[in-house]
């Protein structure tokens, strides 16, 4: 997939090639250059049946995949970026409902990029979790 492809094609290719994204049931939509990732609620995502609440790892993984998807939109290579590190902040319980996330690329480097992601459910202004992460960019070509 080269940079002659459209952002929508690059996003679709990233989502389709990653088995773990299908496991989560994650999808994403593009409005111009703004991507919104969507994690539809599914019972297998629950980590705490008493509350009930989404597994914290699922929220972290969903935001990490959101960052990787956003990076795939801006890069043309066939390989996805690789996660170097992430710091996940848990702000509110992730309830048993649909979750959304948007990524902000703070720095798109040739080798390393820095990305922030926020995830929310009922209200964009009340995020349930956030991550900051560094990602190794795929080699060009």
């Amino acid at each position, binding site marked *: 997939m080269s940079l002659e492809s459209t952002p929508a094609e690059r996003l679709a290719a990233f989502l389709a090639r990653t088995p773990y994204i299908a496991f989560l049931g994650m999808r994403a939509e593009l409005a111009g250059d703004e991507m919104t990732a969507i994690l539809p609620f599914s019972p297998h995502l629950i980590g705490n049946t008493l509350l009930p609440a989404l597994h914290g790892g699922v929220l972290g993984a969903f935001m*990490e995949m959101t960052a990787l998807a956003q990076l795939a939109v801006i890069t043309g290579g066939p390989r996805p970026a690789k996660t170097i590190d992430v710091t996940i902040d848990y702000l509110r319980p992730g309830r048993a409902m649909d979750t959304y996330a948007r990524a902000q690329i703070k720095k798109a480097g040739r080798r390393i990029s820095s990305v922030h992601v926020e995830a929310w459910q009922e209200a964009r202004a009340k995020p349930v979790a956030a991550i900051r992460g560094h990602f190794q960019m795929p080699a060009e070509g």
Partner: protein
Amino acid sequence: MVKPPNFIAAMTGTLDEEAARHMVTRTPQTEALGFQFVSISDARGTIQVPWRADLVGDPETGVIASGVVTTLLDHVCGLSIRAAAAVPQGTLDLRIDYMRPARPQADLVADGHCYKLTRTIAFVRALAHDGDPDDPVATAQAAFALVGGLS
């Protein structure tokens, strides 16, 4: 309201092995990922996740997705806190460093250690490896809030 046995055990003292096994294998997400209980001891816990094709992050390499490692590390941190304090807890923050990709088609093992408890907070370290704990795939550092605090 009838609570499951693991919750009662968690509220009344040390987490026994059956309750720990339940916590690792019987939540919907850990069941979906195929987590297996390995052990608990004083303030420590170990979980294993067998490789599976649908958990792969990059089909060209066949390596388990980093997102699976995130959930594995979060869960083993929770298990080690239960082994230390036996009260329910919620993650405040979780920092994960990915040192290297796991080997293709390798199972992963995670060890957690709750090295400090205050009345309200648990501090935890964990690592994930694919056979040799001295050559980890990822390491984690986390803080958890103890729900209700320690009495």
